[in-house]
């Protein structure tokens, strides 16, 4: 949970403060600024590398650690006293003013090139992973599309099945029936469409998008990119229903010029489903996840 992560960070901060306070109480001095910096970096690395689960990608880890390094530097240099205290062991090591610092300097001057060399070796060592690709996740849709011989203007079209008890289009109908049972025979028309959409979904879509709609279906990991996770707040919740219709109808092969690398394995469902069936599937997806489509007013 994202909130848990923020709480872990807050806990780490107070652990630091309490530790420093305790050391001051017992030994009369806290952790020196230099080691405060080092410890902060280590703590941040442990949180980002091991506490967040599943592990975050290396690119993001480096970004986070780069930021934390910068912040630690800024924090320790806000006052002259703090900055001098931080610099002191570094300067003394470089000067090698005492036998102890001479030893530290020797170890440092051996260790740093070795670590740099090891890092370079690791970086250059051939890897057999496929290269990283930056994808355009939500390419801009066309103004209109042709599906089954009729034109759909994306900025104006509406789902014919998002209707209230009177049969009129109602954006908020989903809100009223989120907890309702779609299998109830006495249910409203909207719920009937949701149920029919669900049937279509489980006949066609769940193999890739998963029976929890989380993009982890049984075939999901045979593809790169893997199928969309509808439970994520950044997919369905960010899109208009007409955008989703366009993606479902035209599939990966119908991605526009800016949708590179055009690697989506999604079939063009207009070849297999009717227009109404596509709309019903979309209604089911929104109802099941509890998200609302993006609207313009």
């Amino acid at each position: 949970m994202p909130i848990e992560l923020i709480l872990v960070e807050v806990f780490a901060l107070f652990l630091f403060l309490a530790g420093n306070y305790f050391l001051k109480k017992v030994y009369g001095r806290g952790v020196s600024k230099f080691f405060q910096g080092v410890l902060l970096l280590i703590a941040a690395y442990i949180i980002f590398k091991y506490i967040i689960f599943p592990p975050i990608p290396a690119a993001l880890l480096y970004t986070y650690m780069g930021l934390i390094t910068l912040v630690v530097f800024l924090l320790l240099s806000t006052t002259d006293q703090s900055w001098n205290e931080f610099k002191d062991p570094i300067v003394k090591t470089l000067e090698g003013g005492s036998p102890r610092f001479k030893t530290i300097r020797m170890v440092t001057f051996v260790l740093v090139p070795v670590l740099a060399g090891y890092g370079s070796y690791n970086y250059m060592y051939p890897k057999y992973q496929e290269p990283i690709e930056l994808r355009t996740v939500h390419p801009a849709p066309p103004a209109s599309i042709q599906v089954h011989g009729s034109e759909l203007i994306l900025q104006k079209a509406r789902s014919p099945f998002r209707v209230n008890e009177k049969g009129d289009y109602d954006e908020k109908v989903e809100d009223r029936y989120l907890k309702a049972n779609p299998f109830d025979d006495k249910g409203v028309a909207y719920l009937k469409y949701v149920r029919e959409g669900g049937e279509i979904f489980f006949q066609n879509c769940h193999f890739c998008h998963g029976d929890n709609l989380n993009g982890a279906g049984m075939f999901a990991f045979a593809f790169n990119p893997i199928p969309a996770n509808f439970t994520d707040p950044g997919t369905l919740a960010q899109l208009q229903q007409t955008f989703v219709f366009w993606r479902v109808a035209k599939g990966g092969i119908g991605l526009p010029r800016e949708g590179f690398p055009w690697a989506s394995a999604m079939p063009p469902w207009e070849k297999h489903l009717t227009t109404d069936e596509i709309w019903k599937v979309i209604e089911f997806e929104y109802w099941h996840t509890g998200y609302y489509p993006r609207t313009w007013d």
Partner: protein
Amino acid sequence: MKALKKSKNFLSLALLGILFLSLFSFAIPLFFQSKAYADEAAAPAAPVMGKDVYYKNEGPVSGPPAPKLKVGDYPMPNLPGVAKESRLIVWVIGQQHLYFGSFVLAVPIFCMVIELIGLLTKDPVASKRYDQLAYDFIKISLTAYSVTAILGGLLIFTFITMYPGFFAYLASLFRPFMHIYALLFLAESGTLYLYYYGWHRMEEGFLKWVHATLGILLNVFGTILMMLANSWLSYMMSPAGVDEKGQFLGNYAHLLHSALWNPINVHRIIGNMVFGGGIVAAYSAYKFLSSKTKEEKAYYDWMGYISMFFAVGSLIPLPFAGYWLMREVYAYRQQMGITLMGGLLAWLFILQAVLIGSLFFSVIYYLFNGMQRMKGAERYEKITKYIFFGVTAAFLVWLTPHTLVMTGSELKAIGGQQHPVVGNFGVMSAKNGAVNTMLILTVLTFVIYQRANKEITVKWKNFGNAMLFTMFGVALANNWWLAIYGYYIPANVRVGLSVPQVAGTLTCLFVGTAINVAMMKGAKSTGPVLWGTISNRSQFAIFALAVSFTWLMALMGYVRSSVRLFWHVMEIMRDNSPWAFTHPIGFASNMMSVNVIIFWIFTLFVFSLAELSSGHREVPSMEDSPVAKTAGRHGHAIAGASE
């Protein structure tokens, strides 16, 4: 003598009158309908009518259609490597012209404000200080003005030689405005020279007010100039006043007033002020680091503080103007909006987030360093780590992308395209919470800075502190609560949540600062501000701020321009050049960096020219006048000065 003075005043007023009347010159073409294009060719009985692509009204076809260019219509320079791509040459020259244009529009705004503050300041020493500050900067802008003109000429030649077909079409539409543009440029030059060279001749009494009015006039000319130039690029993004073939329909007001013209105008005026403040702050830092005496250090330290304040003050409304612009882009064409924020250019907004975060860090770091100038500020040192922690946590959320860059094995380990924990930080709800947290904590840092060398003595001290504490606490709690709540509501409602979030932030900014200022009334000083004692490190924060602004301008300018994709003029005139493609992000970012480096080399050259012209001179005193000191008003001093 009296007669001479009177005639001087009369001449000044007459000159001002003429300049004021020339303000309306830009409106002249609006009173004339263009001759129908058809009239030029054997005048048919009834003009052919066309329908405006934006305003949807009918009008007589009064211009040629947009040409359908072929690959051969784009001259290719005989240069090695990527330099063959003439677009890159236009990119560099255009960006440099824009930087300097922005600089020479912003610095007069800064000077106008500073001069007026000086005029209204009662303490003669402080008044002189402000006046000198404004003068120092207008001197720099004079050199930058020449550079801007040279780059502008170079840009026109580049367009004519490298994009002849496109430029001829644009010029056929905007010809009258281009003439006015040139005339306004002359008027602005004249006003600038009067403003600069007349500075010391118009130093006293009524003439000083005339001079200040010249400053206002200079800015009016500059703003209209910029708005005219903006109309060309806003036409390219959201054409109006033409039919679907790109034929002009005779209404210049429609041509000028396209859908994105005003949002771009507002965003750019504010952006220029931020940029100008950043550049003059960088100049101050440069002078501070190269100062030889205590007096110089003190003056340039103060100069840096004022410039930084101006830049950050202008920065606060900038996101709102940006938000409005983006909203108008969406309203004009949904595809453009999605390409920007969710599609092809979305990754560039992550870079923008990083740069904006670095601005906040620079400001906070500078303010905490600035407290070192004041005795008594030690009380607040322990707060530093909490503020840094809060801003860092918010920044981590702010820069987390929604779609992560990862290898196949990382993707499998995560179990999907979106991370179940940090993936939640990638959506707007989280971003709004994060950026408002950063803003609130920056405002809190400023409030602390204001109190650094003060002992509050008002009777309602505890009540005031409780009010401030509650205000900031409620603003933060409201901000976080709404950020979480945003995940559970429809997108159109969620977008509306940014209003109460920002309202909390702005309340802290305006009301919080006002309460804090009121509490300072009659406060006991724990010591003066020892100008010149700030650390050298803080000056690098100023450089970071200025460079971040420069990079941001390059980045967002590229985003705005490349959102047209393969159109010269959106949906009217296609770009059929061999390079009608969008560059990879890495290449584009390198181009931006090259532009930033070129600009800063140029800027350092401008700074050093200003040095050459003035040589070594006395800086204004940073010591308050005896009158002000006894009144206990300012509490300025320089390090080592007698107390």
